[in-house]
């Protein structure tokens, strides 16, 4: 049984972490987006400035705040802005 949240990383977030996705363990009772991000930043400090301007999606839907609850099996995506043309 899965105990983790899959974090999908795009663009500059992908480079900061050096992977396209990471599996992040969360308590079976769930956690919040904010707590997850804090944990990620602790492990990858270079993510911090990128997260500020990024949009997050939970299971394919954009989430606006960071209080959203997440639990095992959820998928969180971090989408930093980019402007190449």
């Amino acid at each position: 049984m899965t105990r983790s949240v899959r974090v999908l990383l795009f663009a500059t977030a992908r480079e900061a972490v050096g992977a396209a996705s990471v599996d992040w363990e969360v308590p079976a009772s769930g956690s919040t987006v904010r707590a997850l991000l804090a944990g990620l930043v602790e492990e990858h400090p270079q993510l911090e400035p990128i997260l500020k301007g990024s949009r997050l999606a939970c299971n394919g839907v954009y989430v606006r705040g960071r209080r959203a609850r997440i639990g095992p099996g959820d998928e969180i995506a971090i989408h930093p802005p980019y402007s190449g043309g």
Partner: protein
Amino acid sequence: MGKGGSNIDRPKEEGPTMSKVQVKVPTPLRSFTGGTSIAEAEGSTVGEVLRALVTEYHALEKHLFGAGGQLRNFVTVYLNDEDVRYLRRDATPVRSGDVLSIVPSIAGGSPAEAVRGAGRPVPLVGLAEGDEELGPPLTRDQMRRYSRHLLLPEVGVRGQRKLRASKVLLVGAGGLGAPAALYLAGAGVGEIGLVDFDRVEVSNLQRQVLYGTHDIGRPKLEAARDRLNDLNPDVVVRIHEQHLTSENALDILRPYDVILDGTDNFPTRYLVNDATVLLGKPNVYGSIYRFEGQASVFDARRGPCYRCLYPEPPPPGLVPSCAEGGVLGVLPGLVGTIQATETVKLLLGIGESLIGRLVLFDALALRFRELRLRKNPDCVICGTHPTQTGLIDYPAFCGVAAEDTTPAGAKPPQMTPEALAARLAAEDPPMVIDVRNPSEWEIAHLPGATLIPLPDLPQRVTELARARELVLYCHTGRRSAQGAQLLVELGFTHVSNLAGGIEAWAQKVDPTMPRY
């Protein structure tokens, strides 16, 4: 409700507390609230507040609640700035002073759910339906040229005449604009406007398929006009050889039916977005980064805008700018043709547009993902109570302007290429540090230099002797200025930055050095 309020964090009180909450009503639903945009209702949970609301405004009930009394799933409710589906849905507790926002989600861009301009159907593009608007019948030549379109019932003769009567503006004639312009001209869009001010460079040809080797050095728009006229002489090509600014953007965009955003910088993206919101036009968006791309259609009359997605541009320097990052040449081809596809669909009024959806493409995984976007009721330009009524010029992120954001006073000194060449030939030469990426180092580097990519610099400062003179360089001098600044902040005193980077070195000192 019953169990709400029992285990939540609020002052000790007996039982659930009734809170007075403001409810923001979106424009399409205001006809059911007697025009009220902000209503007040009481309850202890989101569900109770909404039920209290429909008790007062009966007509709202069937729009918010299904037959079984549950919240309809196409109604999105935010408590302050949180989507209640990620809190406790109906059971989410509320406090006095909270603000609930009701957001009708956009189902395939149905005009009935328009947020601005409710009540009237919003025309998809500027084109009206009358035959006289479509111009003269197609000529025999046009029948043959567009025969593969005419054979599609979704296009047909009438659709082809619509395309011929349409006007599309492409902002940026680079990686995204180039393929889009070619396909739109081929499709017979009557008028294509182009905004750009660059000249064709040899490094453009890896991805900007509008240009050829013989165009190198020519203004892009001149070369583009020749190519598009050759592809389809029916098309009128209008060139706007200028920077888009807050002064000229509305006037440049106004005559066009659809705007295609293929620019390469944030300030222009925000200008294009804000101008299309203010003018009520669709903004067909595309953006690329290395191996990844995004595309959507922003139309604030029927869905979110770019600011609903990213409210503000990121601070300068956070995202690698235009010239610094590499990009897979075929990537803008994919994203630019998605933009052209969406543009043609909008002009024809067919299919399901990307309004309210963001397509994400990853070339390395060869995977498309899709995200649903919602209008942000608090969006400063397209929200329920917009506070931004004009255009904003953000500082340029590419080139020199970004350098000036480093605090004055603590700026490390610049060294010219000629001065560095002299220092390297003299006794006790400085240590030269290349802060570029290894892939750039492979193209060319300065003799005797040490490679420490900028992201690694903080961890590798221990390799540097504080007493030694250090000279940092990168491609054009921008990243190395950041690196030098960092070293100064860490207490290094003999640090300078090679002015103009290795590009200037190649021009001034070593003309045999490969440039990129």
